[in-house]
């Protein structure tokens, strides 16, 4: 199918519905994996999923599950349950939600399908290591830890060798659990599809460069699901190609995502899942569009390190040098480049109690943005899933004050 013929169909496609359908089918497949003789692996959101796809193992993402728990406002209940189990209320709310959910099979989809193996890549945080240890003890299944040293300042040859060797160990691990060999031709194909999917996802996000922007960060939070869960499949490629074309069409027709876009903002850190609608309305009321964010762009941020013809060979670098696994100063540089690329008038930073590696350093990034670009910033104190750490009145007041500043600074320039 060429882009042209697709274009004709696109106008009638509802991408939100299609996404929901794909995700529903995906979860049904995952839940019935056992009946179809398929294995299920739980994997962290930043982990190398491509070898799983190539081995026909169904990847399941506890963090995506965490996000669903948050979005369906079940976070507080499940977090409380974890606290009763002895987990401190200061721990990541994805982890708390998922850990307690596993014991009760509750949550928005009645629990995740049980894992046959666990794959934990610590390129996002040290929390996942502890979280997967908990689940490995609970489910008594093999755990593979994919250890990606933090790149504070340099990606050293030692790191590269270490991570590359783990890629080999990882594939051996999968072969062991499945009792069959990796099909390397298929792996090559999956690597290419993953690369293509990430490129398309970047192109989707890039449509927000248009003024007005055809999509907001809130949309991106929603459309993100496939690049996380089905990266490396044809399905994700097809979906994002269609979505990109649709967004491009909207952009060319001057259709904005919000009724009147006058201000453009950048979002930092994870979404506040249980208040997406409310927040998007709040900002839209002030004619402010959140055009981009550091979170969803993390799933295409290391494209420059990927060799699409040697995916596995370049994976050490592309999986190690992702947004959260680099120094705060490098993160600040990415934020600055996003401000320039998307023409942001201000930045909204979610100081997320749950996620220390994402949040510590934000104050420094804020200062750098202020110094280098002179645009206003807003720090929102909250949590991605635990609503107990969200004060609506306070946040509303702060958004108002912030928008006042944005208006003043835009007016003055």
């Amino acid at each position, binding site marked *: 199918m060429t882009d042209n013929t697709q274009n004709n169909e696109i106008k009638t496609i509802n991408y939100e519905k299609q996404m929901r359908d794909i995700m529903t089918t995906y979860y049904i497949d995952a839940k019935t994996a056992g009946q179809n003789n398929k294995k299920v692996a739980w994997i962290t959101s930043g982990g190398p999923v491509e070898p799983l796809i190539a081995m026909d193992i169904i990847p399941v993402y506890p963090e995506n599950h965490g996000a669903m728990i948050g979005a369906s406002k079940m976070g507080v209940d499940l977090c409380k349950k974890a606290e009763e189990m002895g987990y401190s209320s*200061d721990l990541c709310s994805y982890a708390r939600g998922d850990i307690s959910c596993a014991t009760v099979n509750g949550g928005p989809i009645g629990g995740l399908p049980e894992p046959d193996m666990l794959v934990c890549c610590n390129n996002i945080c040290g929390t996942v290591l502890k979280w997967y240890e908990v689940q490995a003890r609970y489910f008594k299944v093999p755990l593979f*830890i994919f250890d990606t040293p933090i790149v504070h300042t340099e990606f050293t040859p030692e790191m590269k060798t270490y991570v590359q060797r783990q890629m080999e160990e990882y594939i051996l691990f999968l072969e062991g659990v499945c009792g069959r060999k990796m099909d390397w031709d298929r792996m090559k194909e999956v690597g290419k599809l993953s690369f293509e999917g990430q490129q398309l996802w970047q192109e989707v996000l890039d449509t927000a460069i248009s003024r007005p922007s055809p999509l907001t960060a809130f949309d991106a939070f929603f459309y993100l699901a496939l690049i996380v869960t089905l990266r490396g499949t044809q399905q994700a490629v097809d979906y994002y190609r269609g979505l990109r074309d649709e967004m491009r069409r909207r952009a060319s027709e001057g259709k904005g995502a919000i009724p009147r876009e006058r201000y453009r903002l950048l979002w930092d850190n994870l979404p506040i899942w249980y208040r997406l609608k409310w927040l998007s309305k709040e900002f839209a009321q002030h004619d402010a569009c959140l055009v981009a964010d550091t979170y969803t762009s993390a799933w295409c941020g290391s494209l420059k390190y990927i060799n699409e013809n040697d995916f596995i060979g370049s994976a050490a670098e592309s999986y190690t040098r992702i947004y959260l696994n680099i120094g*705060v*100063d490098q993160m600040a540089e990415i934020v600055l480049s996003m401000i320039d690329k998307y023409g942001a008038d201000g930045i909204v930073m979610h100081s997320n109690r749950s996620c220390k*590696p994402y949040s*510590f350093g934000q104050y*420094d990034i804020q200062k750098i943005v202020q110094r280098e670009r002179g645009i206003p910033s807003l720090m929102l104190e909250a949590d991605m899933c635990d609503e107990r750490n969200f004060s609506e009145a306070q946040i509303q007041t702060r958004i108002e004050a912030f928008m006042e500043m944005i208006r003043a600074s835009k007016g003055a320039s």
Partner: protein
Amino acid sequence: MNHLEEYRRVVSDPSDYARQLQKTSGKKIIGYTCSYTPEEVIMAAGAHPLRLFGTKQNISLADSHLQSYCCSIVRGILEEGLSGRVDYLDGMVFPHTCDSMQRLSDIWRMNIPFGFHLDITLPVKLDTVSAKDYMIDVLKKFRDDLGRKLNVEISDEALQKAITTTNAIRQSIRAIYDIRNLYPQLMPGDDLYNIVRASMIMDRDRLAVMLAETAAELKERAAGAKPADMKRIMLAGGMCNQPDVYAMIEDAGGGIVWDDFCTGARYFTGLIDTGRDPLAGIGERLLNRVVCPAKHADLDGRARHIIGLVKEKNARGVIFLLFKFCDPHAFDYPYLKERLDEAGIPLMIAEVDDSLPAGGQLRTRFEAFLEML
């Protein structure tokens, strides 16, 4: 006893001590944050390793770099840097451990003008061949990086000598622990606390001599001592920044016979093999020592270790001291509790911070726990 006062003085003002040492010995002072730091490499470079523990002073500057939900260790160390109180440091090294320390390294590098900055990006998992090789690679790189910063060649001989010194220090502290395990009444817990801390602050050569003397003195005292009627307690957790906690437990009738702190037994457990490649020996110890919860060696090594110690030391219960906002330890607590419950070992958790809960709350809880034993 002879040296106790000196240990105490050093621990109460490490910066004063370090400045003096710098002046009198001419040694460069290298700060570090965690017990996975290969002190021996720093010593072999002719420099002095100094562990930072946070601060007793009020925090005012660190708050503009770290949110309220950061542990007091990281916040305290940053405060020491920002305030310039440790501006005598010639350099700072940050081994990779938890997420908070990871960001502390960045924030320090970006904001603190004095001294050089080095990361030691250790493996997080410790139980595979590739991790072991990587560990050695990282140590080699650290030796090169540090040598370059200090403009010295770090020789194998110097490393061997440093290993001999730290081995001696670790042996002496173990000897002290062993005697106190039998007769906890012979030395109050806060003296023990000072000894372990002082060993991460003081000049190591001098310390090796002092500690040997302290151990010998304690041994003399132990001759003829009778086991005391105390409830034998073991402490667990990350570390303890509150010497008062020891006294509280002792006042309530507890004898602290052992611990699983990185500023305690985890620091001196495991000697380094001599007579082989020194970096390989150092790496081996780091890989094999009791695992810190920020690293992975196996799934229940820590529970087995703690239960093993409780049995070996004949402790009646465990008090788990948890730093507020400390993720790695907070994640371990529920499973440790479960395992200890199964083994019939009473466990109490106390959240500690740089300030203790007001109104003697903690004291009351210790009393209640000890009474139950």
